[in-house]
């Protein structure tokens, strides 16, 4: 039985893809008389199958060592590609979390998108999304992971572009694709290089290989940086972070997954690549610097946002920055724990704001207020999600942060400052959002705000309860440190920073006597933060400029130099084109004959010389 479960673990990604395929009759418009909801049900069914299957596998592998599963895919002379999967507690657990959140998001979407006739396409993409992500979780091969990351890029593009007729969606989808693509391209260079150098792309092999690898520092650095670029794009880490902000144009149920598990996939691959990155101190330092910059920068940026989705998406970047730091300090377990706790909390937050957006028809924080008493499920989801995100109460991220800081305590204590800043700023921001959305007096757009329908409320409440129970599960799995192991200074610092953030924001935003909007910093600073440090201008002045100028130059060269130069033949061609125009009007058979005769003449001529010569 267990053997069968192992052998079939690679089916889990296939369920998602199969669900995507099943939607085709509706998404391509073959079925027109009836509506697209069966496509959604098929996908949900497939996700349930995937969840049950991965649950069974998880149960089976819980106490077993990792086991690899090799699926031969392509055998070429001197180069074979195996799709390698690994079933371990971590990988299958990740699959379970992904399918679980995917199921919740899909049920949520049934409500959120109930009036959207393109439902089938949405679910096709969600199935695709889920398939790619579960594949990444199970993959033990950099090749497979790379391929699936690219498929994530594609499905992100299509999901962000779901409402393709909306102008901002169009640019957002493009930017999401191209930004990620920059990372992917560098990653591909790394993959090709690594494949040549190491001979195998299986993570298990790479772990062995790095012990004996003898690379020049330059090669190791370039390789490390290239490999780092992919996750940087996927996790929305500076400088490839802007796409996540723009991707918020997409439908909210996709944002639930994007901010929780999709970004985590990038980090997951990064964790697996960490031994290779460790070959180069420069790569590792770059990883740390990018992580630190993103963690602090994105936390600040998120406070300056007035859009409810964007303020949370920047905080996602910030947390992924912390994960990067964890990977950089070689705490893989902590990074995974962080991904899990952050993913669940963020998914909950995004569900909550999804119901807010649908109920109030606005995403503008300044237009909201007073929702708390009328939307209990949404409110509790937001509150629990927030508490699980910051280190204030012993919920999810508190433990992850504790483990994180514990790990760097001896290695690099200065990093704890970054954690405290991020924790404080996030606590401040979430309290700010809470104050603006749920507290205070209702505004015109929030005047009538009935709680959302059960299809949205149910997954939200379920996840709320799960978030509250998560520490208990951790305790059962013995992930939590015992009391004697806990560093009281760290706990104190964490709580202090979190409470400080909460308290400060509470004093400002929960206080009816302070009129909103509040101006905390000067206008120019706020503008810079609100527009994400103007990183888009950085793009415009670097990559975009290079490509645009390069293409203009090439087009000019092509038109005036190359074509002109080679067209000394062209002059003749225009001339003969004129003189041969009659051929177009019907006498082409004559022309055909002429051409044939010409060729034959040439042949004869040449062959005659040839013949004569060889005599």
């Amino acid at each position, binding site marked *: 039985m267990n053997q069968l479960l192992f052998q079939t673990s690679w089916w889990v990604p296939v369920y998602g893809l199969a669900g995507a395929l099943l939607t085709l009759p509706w998404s391509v418009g073959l079925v027109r008389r009836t509506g697209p909801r069966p496509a959604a049900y098929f996908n949900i069914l497939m996700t349930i199958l995937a969840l049950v299957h991965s649950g069974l596998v998880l149960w089976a592998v819980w106490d077993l060592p990792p086991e690899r599963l090799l699926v031969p895919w392509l055998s070429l002379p001197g180069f074979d590609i195996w799709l390698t999967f690994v079933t371990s507690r971590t990988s299958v657990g990740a699959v379970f979390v992904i399918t679980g959140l995917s199921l919740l998001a899909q049920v949520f979407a049934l409500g959120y998108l109930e009036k959207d006739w393109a439902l089938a396409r949405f679910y096709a993409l969600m199935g695709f999304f889920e398939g790619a992500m579960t594949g990444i979780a199970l993959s033990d091969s950099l090749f497979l992971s790379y391929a699936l990351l690219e498929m994530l890029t*594609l499905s992100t593009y299509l999901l962000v572009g779901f409402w393709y007729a909306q102008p901002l969606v169009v640019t957002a989808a493009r930017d999401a694709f191209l930004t990620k693509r920059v990372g992917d391209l560098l990653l591909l260079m790394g993959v*090709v290089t690594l494949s040549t150098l190491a001979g195998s792309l299986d993570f298990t092999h790479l772990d062995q290989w790095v012990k004996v690898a003898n690379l020049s520092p330059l090669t190791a650095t370039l390789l490390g940086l290239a490999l780092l670029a992919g996750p940087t794009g996927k996790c929305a880490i500076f400088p490839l972070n802007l796409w996540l902000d723009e991707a918020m144009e997409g439908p909210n149920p996709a944002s639930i997954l994007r901010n929780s598990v999709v970004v985590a996939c990038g980090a997951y691959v990064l964790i697996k690549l960490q031994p290779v990155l460790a070959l180069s101190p420069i790569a590792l330092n770059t990883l740390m610097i990018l992580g630190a910059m993103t963690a602090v920068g994105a936390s600040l940026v998120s406070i300056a946002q007035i859009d409810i989705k964007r303020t949370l998406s920047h905080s996602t970047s910030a947390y992924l920055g912390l994960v990067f730091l964890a990977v950089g300090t070689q705490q893989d377990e902590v990074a995974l724990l962080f991904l899990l706790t952050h993913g669940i909390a963020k998914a909950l937050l995004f569900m909550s704001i999804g119901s807010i957006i649908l109920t109030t028809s606005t995403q503008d924080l300044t237009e909201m207020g007073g929702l708390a008493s009328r939307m209990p499920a949404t409110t509790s989801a937001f509150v629990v999600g927030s508490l699980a995100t910051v280190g204030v109460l012993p919920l999810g991220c508190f433990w992850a942060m504790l483990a994180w800081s514990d790990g760097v305590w001896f290695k690099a204590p200065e990093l704890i400052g970054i954690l405290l800043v991020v924790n404080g700023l996030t606590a401040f921001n979430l309290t700010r959002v809470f104050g603006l959305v749920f507290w205070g007096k209702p505004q015109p757009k929030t005047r009538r705000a009935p709680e959302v329908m059960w299809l949205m409320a149910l997954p939200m409440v379920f996840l709320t309860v799960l978030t509250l129970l998560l520490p208990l599960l951790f305790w059962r799995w013995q992930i939590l440190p015992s009391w004697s192991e806990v560093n009281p200074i760290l706990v104190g610092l964490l709580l202090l920073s979190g409470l400080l953030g909460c308290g400060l924001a509470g004093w400002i935003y929960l206080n009816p006597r302070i009129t909103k909007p509040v101006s905390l910093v000067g206008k120019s600073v706020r503008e810079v933060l609100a527009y994400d440090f103007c990183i888009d201008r950085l793009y415009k002045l670097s990559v975009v400029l290079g490509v645009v100028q390069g293409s203009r130059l090439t087009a000019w060269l092509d038109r005036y130099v190359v074509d002109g130069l080679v067209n000394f033949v062209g002059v003749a061609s225009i001339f003969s084109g004129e003189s041969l125009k009659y051929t177009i009007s019907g006498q082409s058979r004559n022309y055909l004959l002429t051409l044939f005769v010409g060729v034959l003449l040439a042949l004869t001529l040449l062959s005659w010389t040839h013949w004569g010569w060889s005599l």
Partner: protein
Amino acid sequence: MLSVLIWVPILGAVIIGCLPESMVATRSRQVALAVATGLLGWSLYLSSQFHLSEPGLQFQEGLPWIESLGLTYQLGVDGLSLPLVLINSLLSWLAIYSSDGQIHRPRFYYILLLILNGAVAGAFMSQNLLLFFLFFELELIPLYLVIAIWGGARRGYAAMKFLIYTAVSGVLILATFFGLSLLSGSSTFDYAVLQEHTLPLSTQLVLLITLLIGFGIKIPVVPLHTWLPDAHVEAPTPASVLLAGVLLKLGTYGMLRFGLQLFPEAWRVIAPGLATLAVVSVLYGSFAAIAQTDMKKIVAYSSVGHMGYILLAAAAATPLSLLGAIAQMISHGLISALLFLGVGAVYAKTGTRDINVLRGLLSPERGLPLIGSLMIVGAMASAGIPGMMGFVAEFIVYRSSFEVFPVQTLLSMVGTGLTAVYFLIMINKVFFGRLPDSLANLPRVRWHDRVPAMIVTVLIVFLGLQPSWMTRWSQTTAVALVEDRLNRSTTTFAEVRSVPSDPDWLSLQLTGSESPKRPIH
């Protein structure tokens, strides 16, 4: 066996030619389609009879023809030509199927398409240099006429440019063939015989460079490419499909078959240059594509870029890279066919290909949603998104060429990123956004317009997921091509493939049983 692929289309052409005037309008298309279907079936049958483990030529046929010229009618296929023959049959069928039913002068049109089909098949199967050349020349006449008669507004210019460039290419190739035949002192053009000869390096170089310029025009390699965008823009859709899908492959096929195989030593000398030229082609084509506003030009320049990968892999000349080159030929053939079919459908319905005019064509009720979706698939396949065959082919090319030319490979990989840029610009502008009122009354899209693109899409995705169906035909041949060279080469080939360490230690060390790597035979 193989002659069928040449003479049945000719026969079909004759039948169409003999149709009574009253039946021309309706029957020409039917006859052509029937012949094309038969040919496709026959090619599939041949593939099923093909021995995968046999490295040499199969289904050989030979008849003496003009002995004094050294011209014999000798045919045969191996793993290099068989996939191309298959693609030729498939795309010819699609081209005929997707041709406009109301086309004017149908009799002549279908005759030309059938002749084209036969000539190209002949070129891929010829085992005599002169015979190859004959077919190579024969193929360009029908294409010239198709562009010149059924083309767009500037068809005269484009067709003439195409003809002259290709004719120059033909002359250069012919000159090389004669040179080779003369210098090797034999009075034959038999491929097998010529292959046995070894010429001095300097002679080889002269001949090879001449030959490469000839084939370089056909591929086309920058800076000899300018005929291609013009020809594509003016050509009717079926001709574009054939031009990009099959005819360009004659150039790369010839380069591998006659360049690499007949001049192995010289090839190694100029290979770094070729690789650099490939980089130039890739980047130049991609950058030029970004600046275009005509959808067809974008796809045409993308062809220039993507054919560069074949050149890169050919330059590397390892078994894996040759396999990559063949895979890239197939993948580019299908992907560019898909893109041209999509562009053709857009043009047929909207009357324009200007990406600044078109918008919102994904609109489900009044736009071309399915065509748009298939175009997105095509663009993504071209940009090397995994799950489609473009990725597999490009990955093999990169992986194999990296061992030999790391810098050039990395540089040309930038082309994949640029591909995403220009195709995304095109997709976003043409298919996303709101359908403007000026495009709100497009004619109905019928299944007939969609079926060809759907067939190609299914193939692209299927072969992307199951690439061994694409690579297995050519594996043995690719190895044989290189081994043959190794055996004949005076210097050892080891320095070329010195980069990769033997990967086997790893798997042996780790598990013993599972072997993710097999040594090169």
